[in-house]
């Protein structure tokens, strides 16, 4: 009896060890960015189709007020709400993929925003399961109204990842531009003999370069301030717009830095 037990235990361990790594890797999303974007665009197109049908059926029901037209309108409302939830879900999945593959994203904020996305997916799944059995006009309006209470969470799951992606990309580029500026000085400008008047000119160019880099950092800090600003109550969408405005300035400043760096490099 005891030997059988050992044999079974050994067999179980063997099978578990060989299967376990696949089990973990299977949890990772198998789709790449392009596939996720393609899924999202498809769902958005479906939503648009359903919206056109919904508008027509709703108008028909408002005009005729018959039982048949009401059932038709309930059916198309349900289809539209389902398509909206599916579209929003596919969009959050795209953002999740892009955000978690963007360099320079603040780790602490990444965790917080990931939590927004997870709770939004849960809200959308729950909404979809509530919609499934609905056949009645009153109930469908109730389910739709219930979802509207979670709109701000859904918007946060859309706009906070976008803010982090935008800040992360600009920050990452700014960091690399700064490294290039150090290399320019160390490997090129310092190599120019002190006796040449050209060197003084190049060093003056570096001062202008530093001024641009400093401006870039300032704009990125302002973008973070807008991101964190909780004093002014605003929607996630408005907050995103404010962050983008600051990042546009940082973008221009980095562009100026690169142009200046190119001019300096040509003078060497």
């Amino acid at each position, binding site marked *: 009896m005891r030997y059988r037990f050992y044999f079974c235990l050994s067999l179980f361990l063997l099978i578990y060890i060989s299967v376990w790594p696949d089990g973990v890797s299977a949890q990772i999303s198998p789709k790449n960015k392009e596939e996720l974007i393609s899924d999202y665009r498809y769902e958005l197109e479906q939503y648009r189709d359903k919206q056109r049908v919904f508008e027509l059926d709703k108008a028909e029901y408002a005009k005729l007020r018959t039982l048949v037209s009401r059932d038709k309108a309930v059916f198309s409302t349900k289809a539209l709400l389902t398509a909206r939830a599916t579209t929003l879900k596919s969009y959050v999945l795209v953002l999740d993929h892009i955000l978690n593959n963007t360099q320079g994203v603040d780790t602490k904020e990444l965790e917080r925003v990931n939590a927004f996305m997870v709770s939004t997916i849960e809200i959308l799944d729950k909404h979809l399961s509530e919609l499934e059995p609905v056949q009645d006009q009153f109930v469908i309006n109730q389910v739709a109204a219930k979802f509207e209470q979670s709109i701000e969470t859904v918007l946060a799951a859309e706009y906070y990842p976008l803010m982090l992606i935008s800040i992360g990309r600009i920050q990452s580029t700014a960091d690399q531009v700064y490294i290039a500026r150090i290399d320019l000085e160390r490997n090129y400008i310092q190599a120019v003999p002190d006796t040449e008047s050209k060197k003084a000119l190049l060093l003056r160019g570096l001062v202008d370069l530093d001024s641009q880099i400093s401006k870039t950092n300032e704009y990125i800090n302002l973008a973070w301030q807008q991101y964190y600003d909780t004093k002014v109550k605003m929607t996630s969408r408005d907050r995103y717009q404010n962050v*983008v405005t600051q990042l546009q300035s940082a973008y221009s400043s*980095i562009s100026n830095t690169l142009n200046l760096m190119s001019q300096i490099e040509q003078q060497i």
Partner: protein
Amino acid sequence: MSMPITDQSSFNQFQENLQSPPLDPNKKPSRFTKKHKIAVGVGGLLFMLLILLAAIAPKPAPVPEPEIPVVVVPPIVSTNTSEFSKRLIELQAQLVAADPAEVEVLPPPVALEISL
């Protein structure tokens, strides 16, 4: 009166037979002795231990590649800046990709309030 004389050895045999369990006349004697059974048990334990060790044993470290001798290159002087130009072009491309106004996918323009 003298006591009856008894055979002591046959009496001991009788006692042993009384203490041992009744023998099944149909049961065939086992081919495996106690030593065999112990050997199989120890073998099984060793096999299990081997599997456990294989599971928890750290992966062998990759064989270090032969070290490439470090060649000290003097800093690039004056006009030889083509590498840096390429780097600037790459950074420019990276900046264009990071344009905050040009995100790959903006939030879907869906109606957030729908009712019949």
